[in-house]
């Protein structure tokens, strides 16, 4: 009943190529690019810790106020978020979650080590104001950003150390973030990354991607690429009303849709079974889940 998702792992090792010349085995070769001459080893080591998916604009509520956390400075990140991307992300988060953003909640902007000029700060403020959120205070570890914010008339706190106000995640990264709720259509080119579960009320179009450390729920049509349990959690699941993805990934497993799409779609759940990613009808999945739990309770 459930569509058969074939494995992807063999896709890189298709055989029957021409015989190798120049000493390269064409069927099975390893190809690496030369290291960037500008990046020294030292820098590479420095940028490594930033390669986690938690790199996008993020809201957090904390004791009656809203923390707006900006991604780290692009020059130190392997997955950099430049100002234009940042602005798009902020807009999307504001419009996608507006029903849960209580108007007049004071916002504290955590700029981390990003360089912001006064114009950019004013633009952020304007976007927040449109959502009726007052920008109360700006935290930055960069002097220039702090000065720019102060000149623009905001109250500023220049932090020299991290590990304060929702920045503790840099140090301790075992706990996931609260689920990210988005009421929006994710269009081609949009990438949502989140250190937790992602819930989308809307469609995920082809060319969009969601990378979540937790589960992914799509209350709509899933047609893009989604990666649940991106940190390696094989228990994570992907659920969609209309499961027609370009590609599904859970932890380190990859699957793609069958060549022939089913005649009609029903809500489905993707999970890791004994032999890779499996798909089950949502109704049947709930039942199938029960027996696994029951015997432990029944057995004395």
């Amino acid at each position, binding site marked *: 009943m459930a569509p058969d998702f074939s494995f992807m792992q063999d896709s*890189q090792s298709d055989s029957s190529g*021409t015989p190798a010349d120049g000493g390269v085995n064409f069927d099975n070769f390893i*190809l690496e*690019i030369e290291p960037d001459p500008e990046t020294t080893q030292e820098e590479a080591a420095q940028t490594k810790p930033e390669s986690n998916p938690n790199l996008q604009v993020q809201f957090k509520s904390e004791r009656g106020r809203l923390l707006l956390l900006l991604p780290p400075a692009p020059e130190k990140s392997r997955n950099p978020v*430049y100002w234009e991307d940042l602005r798009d992300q902020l807009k999307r988060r504001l419009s996608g979650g507006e029903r849960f953003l209580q108007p007049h909640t004071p916002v504290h902007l955590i700029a981390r080590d990003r360089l912001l000029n006064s114009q950019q700060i004013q633009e952020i403020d304007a976007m927040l104001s449109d959502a009726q959120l007052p920008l109360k205070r700006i935290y930055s570890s960069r002097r220039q950003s702090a000065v720019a914010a102060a000149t623009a008339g905001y109250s500023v706190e220049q932090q020299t150390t991290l590990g304060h106000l929702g920045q503790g995640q840099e140090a301790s990264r075992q706990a996931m973030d609260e689920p990210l709720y988005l009421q929006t259509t994710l269009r081609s*080119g949009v*990438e949502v990354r989140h250190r937790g579960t992602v819930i989308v009320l809307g469609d995920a179009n082809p*060319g969009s991607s969601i990378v979540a450390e937790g589960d992914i729920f799509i209350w709509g049509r899933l047609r893009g690429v989604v990666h649940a349990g991106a940190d390696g959690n094989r228990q994570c699941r992907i659920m969609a009303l209309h499961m027609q993805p370009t*590609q599904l990934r859970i932890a380190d497993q990859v699957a793609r849709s069958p060549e022939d799409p089913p005649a009609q779609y029903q809500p489905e759940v993707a999970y890791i079974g004994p032999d890779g990613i499996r798909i089950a009808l949502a109704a049947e999945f709930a039942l199938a889940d029960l027996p696994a739990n029951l015997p432990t309770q029944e057995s004395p």
Partner: protein
Amino acid sequence: MSRIIVMTSGKGGVGKTTCTANLGMALAKAGQRVAVVDADFGLRNLDLLLGLENRIVYTALDVLAGECRLDQALVKDKRQPNLALLPAAQNRSKESIKPEQMKRLIKALTKVYNFILIDSPAGIEMGFRNSIAAAREAIIVTTPEISAVRDADRVIGLLEANDIKAVRLVINRLRPAMVAAEQMMSVKDVQGILSIPLLGVIPDDEQVIVSTNKGEPLVLDEKLSKAGIAFTNVSQRLQGEKVPLMDLSIPQDNFFTRLKRLFGVSS
């Protein structure tokens, strides 16, 4: 010595990606080892035309970021294992990669592949500069339209300024009937302006749309369409074979129309 060829046009929508996909596939069919590189970061399409979208795991950016090796990012075509695609990232802008990084990617590809086709984005900005950074040859794709030819002319100038001297022309979407009626620029008209060697002429063909939507390049068809034959011819000329230049244009069309008239087929 591998051949590194950039497919570019200046103007958008003239068929760069279609040409790249078909030419790459035709070369691979002829036994060449071909890597097609999508340099259109942010608006990638080449994977769709090749029908490989759902097989992409890593992109060129992941290779540059050190997330994976280059061979892991290459998507081998299941129909034609001689062909591999290096996909672009869809979620980034064209500024997210530098010409120097492009060179490193291409340089590594030359160790395994003897043809590297780079699908350039439209325009002459950063994306274009990235795509030509490593190229040693160029194929200009244009349609017989005044705007496309104007842009192609500008691009040829830019390529020459960047020391890419081997520049050849593919005229795409030619409609012989319209040329005969003097409603469309002829091959001669286009060549007269651009004055670079002609590599081939691709007739306008509805099959192209069908093949694009199916993700199967025309040159894979059992029975080749006219455009499919034209692409195959271009690939043969690219490999140095002497294939007579398209008797497809006006004389052949007249022949066809005469044939059609003979059999009473209305076109």
